[in-house]
Structure formats: C-alpha cells, structure tokens
C-alpha cells in the first residue's frame, strides 16, 4: 500500500465512522477513531480541542516532520462526534501564516526593531516598577487555564493590585451576572446533551448556524433522523439560522425585555406557570433603588402586578412581534409535555440591559418549570474557547479571584493568600478597573486621572475589538508616558500600534487546558515547536515575575522567601523556569492546574487531577471522586438525578441561592429604551457581529487562505428596500457613519442574512475595515459589558459623501 492509498483508506474509515454517528447517534456508533491510530506512514496523531470558538470541539491533530499536516474531527469527542465546521478543519493552518511573529520587537521611532528576550523581559519588569498599581494586564478567554491562573497570581498575588481584566468582559460578562443574580453561582446548569433531548429550541438573538455550527448540526441531524424539534428564532435580523426555523420572530432592538415580560405575564394570567416548581424552588426579585445585582425581594402578587402592563398587544406595540406569536411562545412554555431549551450568546450579552434580559430568560424557564430535566434548560453559549474555563472559573477579572471568589471579601482574600502562601494583607480589597475603564484611563493623560500607564495585552486584539476605539485606544498612542505591550502570534491591529511586541507560541505549540460553554475542562500536549523565538504566554509572565524578583521586588516572593512560581523537579530542586531552555523540563501546566484545582471547591466546581484530563476528551465539572476511586462528571447541575451536591431525595436544589434558602430568583425587569436610538440625523440601527468563516478579529482565520478566500472582506448588509431608496446595489461603496466615526464599506444585499428595513449589519473580522471605531461604549450597569448590537447610524452613497466633502 502506498502513502496515497493509506491516506485514502484512513479518510474513508473516518468518513464511515462519522456517517455511523450521524445515522445512529453517539452511543450506538462504535469504533476507534482511525485518525488516532498511531504511526501510520509517519504521521503522529494526538487530541486537542479546536483553537477557535467556545463550542469546544475536539480535533485529532496529525503531525509529521515537526509540522501539523492533517486535522480530523475526533470521533471520541462527545461535543462534536467527529464533525467539524469550516474553521475547525482548517485550524492546523492557523499556525502557518507567512507573517508569524518570531522575535521580540521594540518600537524605535516609527519602526519595530528586533531585540533579545532578555531585553524585552527587562523592559516589561521595569514598566511594572515604574508604578505597580498603574500596570494593567488585559487578557483573554483564549488564555489557557494555566495561563490565566498565572496572570491572576502575578497581578493579585504578586503585584498586590487588581488591574487585571479580560476580553471576556466584552462577550459574556452579562451571562455571568445573570447566573449570579438568578442562581447565586455562575455558568449553565444544563449542557449540550439538552440539544439532543429538547422538543423546542428557542434561540434568543442567536445565530448558531454560523457561530456554533457543530452544535446547531446536532439539532438539524435529529430532524434528519425524523425527530420533531421545533426551532424558534427570536432576533433583530434574519440570519442563516432563521432559514431552519419553524418560527422566525423579528423584534425592534432592545425590546427583548418586553417580549420576555410579555411571556411571563401570559403564564401568570393564564395560570399556566408551574406552580409546584415555583413554590418549591423559587422566589421573586425586582430592581432596587439604588440598583444592585441582588435587587429587592418581592412577592408573587407584586411580581404579577409589575407584569400587568405587558399585555400581548402592548408588547406587540413595543417590540413589533405580533401578539399571536407571543401567545404561541407563552403556550409552549405553559406546556408540561414538551422540553424547552433556550440558547443565547452575544445578542443577549452585548446589551446595555444584558443582566436584565439574562435574568428574564432564566426566569421564564423557572416560572414554567422548564428546568432541570434533560432538554429543559436555559443555556448561554460563549464565543471563546476558554471564556468559561479561564476567565469565569479562574477569575481573571478585576473584581475576581480564582474559584468564584471576589477581592471584596476578606475571607476569600485570606483563602487565596493561604493557597499562594503570601503574607496576610498582600491581596488588595478594591477591585481594579473593568475593561472599558482600564482602557479609558490608559487613553487619558496621567495628569488628568489616567492612572494606568502600561497595559500588557495577551492573546487578544483590543484595537480591533473594543468598542469606540477612537476614544478608548487611539488617544493612548499619542501620550508619551503610556506604554503598550502586546504578546501575539501575528502582527494584529493591536500589535502594530504597540511599543513592545512579544512573539507567542499558540495552540499545539504549547501545552494547554481550556474550558468550554458546557463546563467541560479539556487538555492537550505540545505537539510542534513554535517558530523562531516565539514562546508560551505563561512563560512570559513567569519570566517577568522572576526578573522582578531579581530586581528586588518583594511581591514576587512568597512568605517563606521562595519565588512565587517555584516548581521543583524530580530531584527536589527548583527548576529555572524563567530560562526557556528549561521551561519544559517539567509540565508547568500540570503544576499550575493542580494549584488552581485547590481553589475550585467552594463553589462546587470541583476538578479532577490533571492526569484524568489527559485521558478524556474533557470532563464537565463538578467532577467528583467516586468510592471506587474513579472520577465522575456532572451533566445537569442542581438536578437530584445527576448532581452529587443535591441533597438525597430532592429533585432540585439551588445550593448557592443568593437568599441561602435553596431558591433561585425569578426576576422582573422592565423594558426601557436603549441609550441611543435612530433619529432624523442617524436614522438606522447598526448591529455588528461575526461570520462563519472568521473567528473574531480574523487574526488567525484571515491568514488561512481557504477562509480568507471564502470571505475576503467586511461589508455592510442592508435591506433591499433601503438599498433601493439609497440607489445602491451589491458591491457599491457606501459610507456608514455614527456619532463616533465613519467607515466606507461595500454593500451586500440578499446575502446570507437580511436586516429589516432601517437596519444595518457589519461584521468585525476585517482589520482593514474597523467597524469598532463606530460602535457605542455604553455598557450594562452590572456586568460592564458594552453593547455592540445597537447604535444609531446613517449610510450614504460614497460618491455623495465625496461630493459633499468637495
């Protein structure tokens, strides 16, 4: 058999196994993934979660001669059952763009010039010493769990400050506050298994056909096998998802709160809510004055009164959704014989009322008892591979500490001081700046209160992804005493404006662990060497910590005088991790993870020992040790039949209840108009988002030729009627303008989506067409998450703009 025949044979076996899983489902399809068979024709295979989104698909990575040469869907992975989306099967090529950063670069004049790692690490350390309180780290939901944990320990345990926040603030912070306000603890109770069991799937401002295609195909495949699943799309524009749906409801931006209140009103007035479930497990809550995340307790009768204005007719008037459709939704929620799963992602989270709409959707499931059974679940999806695992669980946010702790609680600080073995009082009690505030202060002159002098960015691209970048990013580049450090793999929009660029290793060029949207913690090993002098992000943090130690900074010592990141080798002696030549003498990830694991019990997010994750395609926490010594994951939290922390004999127990009585909170929150709406000057709504081919800011996917060719540049999607009125057709250039900036874009009409009249959609993946110069930096009052989904805009034909400008 020659190499070609071997490859074809392997490929056919892989396809047949995948077909078998599609035909018979996960459980009945047997077999070992052919791609995992070692050694065939010199290709070595190993598992890794995909580098891109929060779904957490596993791939098999084929390596030959030190390079990734093939990618296969992992047949053993419960998340994707051997299948991948268009990004996933090209993920290997993300390593091999022609312009990988391979050496540290320092800005001198107008140029970035190569410098040594020694000099680069020294520069970073001396920026810390300038004023440790003004040194911020801006990290990422693409940090691995050990990287995020190292950053948290560096800033909170080492610098004794809390100037650490992460880009997940921009994508799921409102989901977090929604979970906290409702259940008292973060992250979904359900999991992807709900997609296999639900009778009704409601997508709230969500487009999984493009953004989470592998999850969406699980549901579509059920239909192909003859199962009946009703799909309902509730959104502000028609998307690829809409085309698959039985009901597709369009609402006016921001009015989703009125829709949720309207459904609750009907459930209460019709008496179709689940009285027994509510009486046993729930309490009622409304906004307080002053506003707090806890709100104030109200009675059921008060709740009923607050909902009374939200009649179907009134909600139709506010939202544009017909009263009959609201009744249809209420009727579905009122049925006990169907199972309903709600999905949402950025549509509900990137919202100035993000916490409120998250609370309301959880409330609908609680009020109707559609909770705690497979297929009955309110489930938020995340956009990044470890927004959950790293940012939410490790707690790389300005107010947080690992394991669900917060800096404001003395007890929590003391626990972390104990785990980190640092002196009492090392951890600061005042939260640092959330993302928007951190960047605002970085872009404000020091003498005017801009007390952040340096930001170190890792694994993210804020110059492209922050909102209103002309306000939050650009001014800093003109301030002489502000210093921007960027660790990245490619010269991203942020790297290009940085003062110091540090080349990073990515994905299978290093060990890693991530946590996906369904509480699944995943692990992989380094498979190939990074190019040139690119190095692990965690190593960079540890090397700077050690340089600070060498420069006499006491914070990088524990209370016994040892280096904060000390790891001992088999000989019992400390390994010089700060010297990259020795970084892989031990498994640093395992050491960091095992230390982090100690923090996870207080919120019942128990993790198994590292070797368990080496064996598995991820495990969903809480992972609890069994009498036989094995480790068991949990699929459905708070449900007596599956969650080991629910008291025996109880069907449901919300054991982190904010009211300490095992009850979840059903919230009332009123509809309110958004901070900026279309007017005569700016008559359109502008919504931004993603496309299937590109992942977030396109730093990786725009360097994969196949994906770049498939979607080469950004565009503005317009309704046909608006385009006709404007006199433009497909490909014509228009200028989109808001009160914050303007941008020239080609028009796309009748593409994969269609906004309603008076609305525009622009994707944000294209670094040449930065739409976030136009977006709004208004944010939710609790989560501090900005709203990228609605602001007022106008659009004009390009030649008319040119004429006007003379």
């Amino acid at each position: 058999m020659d190499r070609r025949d071997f490859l074809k044979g392997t490929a056919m076996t892989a396809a047949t196994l995948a077909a078998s899983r599609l035909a018979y489902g996960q459980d009945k399809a047997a077999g070992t993934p052919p791609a995992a068979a070692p050694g065939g024709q010199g290709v070595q295979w190993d598992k890794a979660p995909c580098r891109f989104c929060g779904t957490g698909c596993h791939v098999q990575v084929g390596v030959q001669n030190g390079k990734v040469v093939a990618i296969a869907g992992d047949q053993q992975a419960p998340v994707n059952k051997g299948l991948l989306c268009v990004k996933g099967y090209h993920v290997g090529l993300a390593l091999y763009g022609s312009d990988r950063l391979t050496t540290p670069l320092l800005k001198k004049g107008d140029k970035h010039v190569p410098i040594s790692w020694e000099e680069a690490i020294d520069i970073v350390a001396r920026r810390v010493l300038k004023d440790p309180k003004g040194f911020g780290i801006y990290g990422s939901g693409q940090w691995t769990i050990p990287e995020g944990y190292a950053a948290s320990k560096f800033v909170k345990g080492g610098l004794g400050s809390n100037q650490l926040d992460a880009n997940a603030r921009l994508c799921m912070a409102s989901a977090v506050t929604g979970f906290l306000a409702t259940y008292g603890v973060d992250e979904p109770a359900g999991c992807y298994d709900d997609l296999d069991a639900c009778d009704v799937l409601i997508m709230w401002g969500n487009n999984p056909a493009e953004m989470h295609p592998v999850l969406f195909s699980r549901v579509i495949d059920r239909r192909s096998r003859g199962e009946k699943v009703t799909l309902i799309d509730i959104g502000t524009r028609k998307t690829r998802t809409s085309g698959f749906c039985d009901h597709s409801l369009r609402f006016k931006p921001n009015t989703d709160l009125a829709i949720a209140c309207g459904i609750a009103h009907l459930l209460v007035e019709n008496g179709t809510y689940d009285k027994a479930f509510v009486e046993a497990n729930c309490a009622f809550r409304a906004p307080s004055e002053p506003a707090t995340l806890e709100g104030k307790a109200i009675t059921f009768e008060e709740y009923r009164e607050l909902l009374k204005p939200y009649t179907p007719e009134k909600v139709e008037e506010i939202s544009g959704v017909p009263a009959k459709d609201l009744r249809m939704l209420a009727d579905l929620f009122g049925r006990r014989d169907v199972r309903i799963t709600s999905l949402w992602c950025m549509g509900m989270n990137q919202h100035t009322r993000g916490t409120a709409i998250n609370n309301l959707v959880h409330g609908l499931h609680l009020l109707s008892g559609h909770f705690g059974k497979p297929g009955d679940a309110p489930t938020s999806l995340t956009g990044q591979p470890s927004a959950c695992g790293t940012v939410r669980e490790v707690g790389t946010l300005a107010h947080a500490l690992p394991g669900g702790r917060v800096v404001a609680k003395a007890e929590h600080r003391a626990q972390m001081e104990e785990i980190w073995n640092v002196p009492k009082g090392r951890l600061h009690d005042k939260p640092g700046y959330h993302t928007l505030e951190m960047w605002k202060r970085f872009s404000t002159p020091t003498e005017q209160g801009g007390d952040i002098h340096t930001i170190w960015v890792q694994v993210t691209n804020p110059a492209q992804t922050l909102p209103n970048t002309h306000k939050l990013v650009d001014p800093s580049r003109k301030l002489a005493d502000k210093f921007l450090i960027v660790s990245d793999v490619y010269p991203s929009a942020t790297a290009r404006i940085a003062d110091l660029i540090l080349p990073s290793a990515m994905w299978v060029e290093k060990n890693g662990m991530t946590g996906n949207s369904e509480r699944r913690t995943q692990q992989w090993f380094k498979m190939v060497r990074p190019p040139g002098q690119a190095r692990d992000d965690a190593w960079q943090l540890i090397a700077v910590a050690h340089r600070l130690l060498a420069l006499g900074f006491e914070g990088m010592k524990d209370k016994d005088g040892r280096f904060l990141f000390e790891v001992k080798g088999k000989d019992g002696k400390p390994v010089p991790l700060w010297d990259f030549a020795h970084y892989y003498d031990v498994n640093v990830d395992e050491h960091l993870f095992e230390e982090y694991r100690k923090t996870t019990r207080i919120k019942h997010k128990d993790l198994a020992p590292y070797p368990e994750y080496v064996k598995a395609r991820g495990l969903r926490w809480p992972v609890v040790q069994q009498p036989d010594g094995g480790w068991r994951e949990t699929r459905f939290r708070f449900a007596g039949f599956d969650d080991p922390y629910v008291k025996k004999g109880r069907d449901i127990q919300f054991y982190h209840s904010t009211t300490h009585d095992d009850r979840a909170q059903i919230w009332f929150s009123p509809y309110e108009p958004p901070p900026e709406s279309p007017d005569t000057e700016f008559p359109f709504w502008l919504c931004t988002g993603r496309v299937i081919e590109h992942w977030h800011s396109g730093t990786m996917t725009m360097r994969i030729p196949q994906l770049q060719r498939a979607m080469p540049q950004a565009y503005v999607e317009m309704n046909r009627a608006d385009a006709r009125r404007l006199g433009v057709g497909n490909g014509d250039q228009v200028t989109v303008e808001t009160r914050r900036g303007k941008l020239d874009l080609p028009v796309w009409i009748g593409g994969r989506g269609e906004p309603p009249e008076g609305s525009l959609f622009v994707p944000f993946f294209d670094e040449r067409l930065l739409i976030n110069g136009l977006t709004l930096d208004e944010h939710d009052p609790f989560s501090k998450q900005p709203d990228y989904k609605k602001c007022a805009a106008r659009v004009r034909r390009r030649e008319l703009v040119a004429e006007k400008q003379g």
Partner: protein
Amino acid sequence: MPISSLVLTLDASPELRASALREVARDPRITLGPPLEERWLPVVTETGSLPEGEALAESLRDVPGVSFVDVVMVDFSEEER
C-alpha cells in the same frame, strides 16, 4: 493531492437520493463508501489543490438530493504552505 473525508446527508425521498448518488458517482475525484441507513453517505475526495477540494465540497451542497455536507477530515500534508 489533498484528500478529504466528507459525509453527505441525503434527502428522505428515495428518488432524490438515487439521483444524488448517480450524480456524485460520476465525478472521478470522489470515492463513495457504503451509505448508512440509505441516507448517510461517506465519501473521500481527492483533488489537485485545497481550493479545488473546497470548491468540490461546496458544489456537493448544491446537488439535488444532498441535504447537508459535513467535513470530517482534511489532509493537507502535501499542500504548499
């Protein structure tokens, strides 16, 4: 010669399925596996370049009687990077 594994989900209608099978089988770049439950068809494609492979997968989506195309594996070990 990039090689990819795909699964074609075929239509519920036997006539459309038969028509899809006939059309797909005509393409010399495609090797068919045995259909499962008559509806899930494993195939392997072998093309001159990755772009050609993508175009082929995309064209399969448009074949009458093919409901979905799932890509299972792509081997690009011999592709110029």
